[in-house]
């Protein structure tokens, strides 16, 4: 589905982002693999994947809160003259807690990465994608951004912003042949899901009897949906938020 395409995946060194990286590589996609920091371990893992699937994986490292480093990294991609067909905004942090017990500074920190960092890299890279008059942007949101239950004034609201942004951006970029969609996974079996921040969702998951799939999502299941939306197989899907939650209700 993604043979000979090039994707930039943020937060690709772990969790859902890493599953997406593996999935894309398996399908013949060349990748700019973003992580916040350089890591020898990550480079070794991606070298193995690149060799296994015969694709090119280049690393770019910057903190999504650092505009200058981000700009430099995107400029290096542009100077390579390699068209970028796909952007997956997967980097994010989790945060849980009741609003009255959440410092506003914590909410700003969550938004800085989950929303503003995502927004800024999208603004820079989409200008490059516009030159090719085609492309696909997939933003990883969350069911927390739709259901917005208690404890979501930081994380859930930041993901609600991602969803709203995806819809408005799809309307703007469609004129240039670029599709923008978001996906809303439920709790996914990654390291992030086993943090104390995600504890409440895990407890709710264990109590759920409403859906036939009483478990966390597998990161590979999320990656499969992302690769579909990134590919030309979803060429008429634009401006959508696709929930992937096994039918579970919390």
């Amino acid at each position, binding site marked *: 589905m993604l043979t000979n395409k090039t994707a930039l995946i943020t937060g690709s060194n772990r969790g859902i982002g890493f599953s997406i990286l593996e999935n894309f590589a398996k399908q013949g996609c060349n990748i700019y693999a973003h992580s916040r920091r350089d890591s020898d371990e990550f480079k070794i893992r991606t070298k193995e994947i690149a060799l296994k699937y015969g694709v090119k994986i280049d690393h770019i490292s910057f903190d999504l809160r650092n505009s200058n480093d981000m*700009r430099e990294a*995107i*400029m290096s991609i*542009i100077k390579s003259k390699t068209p970028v067909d796909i952007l997956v905004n997967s980097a994010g942090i989790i945060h849980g807690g009741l609003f009255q017990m959440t410092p506003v500074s914590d909410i700003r920190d969550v938004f800085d990465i989950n929303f503003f960092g995502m927004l800024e890299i999208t603004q820079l890279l989409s*200008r*490059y994608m516009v*030159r090719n008059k085609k492309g696909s942007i997939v933003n990883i949101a969350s069911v927390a951004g739709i259901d917005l239950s208690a404890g979501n004034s930081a994380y859930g609201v930041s993901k609600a912003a991602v969803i709203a942004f995806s819809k408005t951006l799809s309307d703007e970029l469609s*004129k*240039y042949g670029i599709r923008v969609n978001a996906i809303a996974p439920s709790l996914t079996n990654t390291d992030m899901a086993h943090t104390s921040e995600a504890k409440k969702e895990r407890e709710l998951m264990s109590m759920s009897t409403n859906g036939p799939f009483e478990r966390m999502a597998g990161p590979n299941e999320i990656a499969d949906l992302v690769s579909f939306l990134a590919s030309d197989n979803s060429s008429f899907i634009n401006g959508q938020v696709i929930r992937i939650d096994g039918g579970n209700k919390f």
Partner: protein
Amino acid sequence: MTNFEKYKKSFSDSFEVEESVVETLKYESIPAWDSVGHMVLVAALEATFDIMLEMDDIIDFSGFERGKEILEGYDVVF
């Protein structure tokens, strides 16, 4: 091709107009130069001159002449 010729060609290609008219163009002076056309022009200029324009400059890029002044700030010599 000189930088000035490349600059004119970027306008001509982006708005699908003759090069003979580009020097008079300003934002929204022709239907093709709306906000959508503006981003097409920005993309063309960035590709042609290997630069990345700052957001303030994209917003300030109000016409052919003003654009030249802006690009000179990115070491484009006309």
